[in-house]
């Protein structure tokens, strides 16, 4: 039988010989030497085992953090805390406001639409800081200012002509949507000139409190009515 090394190329055969010569130096020659060699081998195996374990641990922790883990990530998205409590959380304490609101045209609107996110307040009443205690005129205008694109039939007002358009809540209740109508006054005169000919600070009659000098169209927007002798009918 041919020895396997005979088939090796001369360069490799040379290398093999060199390795064998080098290893010969480490061959134990005494019983103590054998014991040392055994202990050394065991120590090397232990180091390799610990090293492999550490490398595997590092790989696993890296994979847990950055690996493909859609289920775990979906659970993390689901674990965020809601900011908006949702409808129904307000009723138990704020019965007066919700009672007026629930029978009004505004009944489809959530409290948090105008008052802001209140999940923290709903879960702990000590957190009483409302983001918006009294909605401003801007809040009303967001929905009710006449704007291109709004559905026909949705209640809109032209802010440039609407009376006291910056103080909506002087006449309108945001919860019940009830409107305080101006008084209906029967005018004693017929064939009237423009309203502000008489009704202005230096005129025959002072402007009522809170009123501003305005065009007839604005005055009559509230004070004109019917054919029973009111301003509008008498002119």
């Amino acid at each position, binding site marked *: 039988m041919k020895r396997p090394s005979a088939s090796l190329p001369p360069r490799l055969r040379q290398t093999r010989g060199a390795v064998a010569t080098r290893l010969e130096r480490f061959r134990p020659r005494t019983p103590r030497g054998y014991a040392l060699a055994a202990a050394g081998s065991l120590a090397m195996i232990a180091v390799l085992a610990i090293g492999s374990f550490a490398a595997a641990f590092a790989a696993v922790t890296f994979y847990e953090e950055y690996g493909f883990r859609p289920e775990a990530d979906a659970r993390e998205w689901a674990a965020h805390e809601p900011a908006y409590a949702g409808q129904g959380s307000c009723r138990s304490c704020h019965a007066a406001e919700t009672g007026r609101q629930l029978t009004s045209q505004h009944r489809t609107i959530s409290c948090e639409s105008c008052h802001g996110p209140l999940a923290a307040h709903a879960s702990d009443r000590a957190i009483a800081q409302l983001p918006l205690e009294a909605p401003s005129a801007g809040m009303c205008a967001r929905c009710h200012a006449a704007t*291109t694109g709004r559905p026909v039939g949705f209640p809109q007002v032209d802010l440039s002509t609407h009376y006291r358009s910056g103080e909506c809540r002087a006449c309108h209740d945001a919860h019940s949507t009830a409107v305080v109508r101006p008084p209906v006054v029967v005018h004693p005169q017929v064939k009237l000139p423009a309203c502000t000919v008489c009704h202005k600070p230096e005129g025959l009659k002072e402007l009522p409190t809170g009123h501003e000098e305005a065009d007839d169209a604005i005055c009559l927007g509230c004070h004109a009515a019917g054919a029973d002798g009111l301003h509008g009918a008498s002119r």
Partner: protein
Amino acid sequence: MNPTMPPCSRRTVLKAGLLALPALGAGRLLSAWLASPVDPTAQAAEPLPEPLAYDPATHDWVFVCDATRCIGCGLCVEACKQENDVPLEPECNRTWVERHTIAEDGSVVVDSPHGGIDGFPPATAADGDVGERVHEAYFVPRLCMQCDDPPCVSVCPVSATYKTEDGVVLVDPARCIGCGYCVVACPYGARYIVPAGDELPGGYPGVADKCTFCYHRTTRGLTPACVGVCPVGAREFGDRADPGAAVHALLEDPRVRVMRPEQGTEPRVYYLGLEGEVS
């Protein structure tokens, strides 16, 4: 070779490399062990508490926007930003509202100032062009379509974005590398990259973000924030897997459309009152 240099053979390099491998592993182990008591990210590795016994396989979420009802108040845009800590930059929106104004000559003007977060001006932005000759105008609520065949998932090179069993497309911010392919691939412009300095609830600037159908609310049985605050019911949300859900009646409406159906994305967001030119 420089004779003063120590001999650096292939063998010594290989030897050093073999020795370094377990040393590196041991170092990682040691650092992980040292860091574990104080590192807050280590706690995230623990199983998170379930919001409720939520099984995504039993749900099939759909969303219906009614353009004939939307009044363009922008409360939905504001609520979305508050609910989800969306960056306040005008170009960063998980949801936004557009106004489509069609002139009598058929030209279309679309405006959406700051995504509509503060509502809309009384006249269109292109008043001079459209002005008195407005033929038709309406508002279109926009959000991620949560496509059943999402292009964003197809293009993501690291599988950071994925589809859940209940039909919602989510982004794993820890895995996202912020390459922006998904932002380009989305036919609806529904994604953005979180600007540097801004933080998501998870705390990852520079990654892609988008509407999640308020996943933390829907899994608790709440509606998405934008649906809850809409004063006119222009946004409806429901579970197609629930036979009693109100969305079934809406979906049977013959006017129901999806946006850009030719893209084959199979959106989960449906529209009522949408004209053909909207995309």
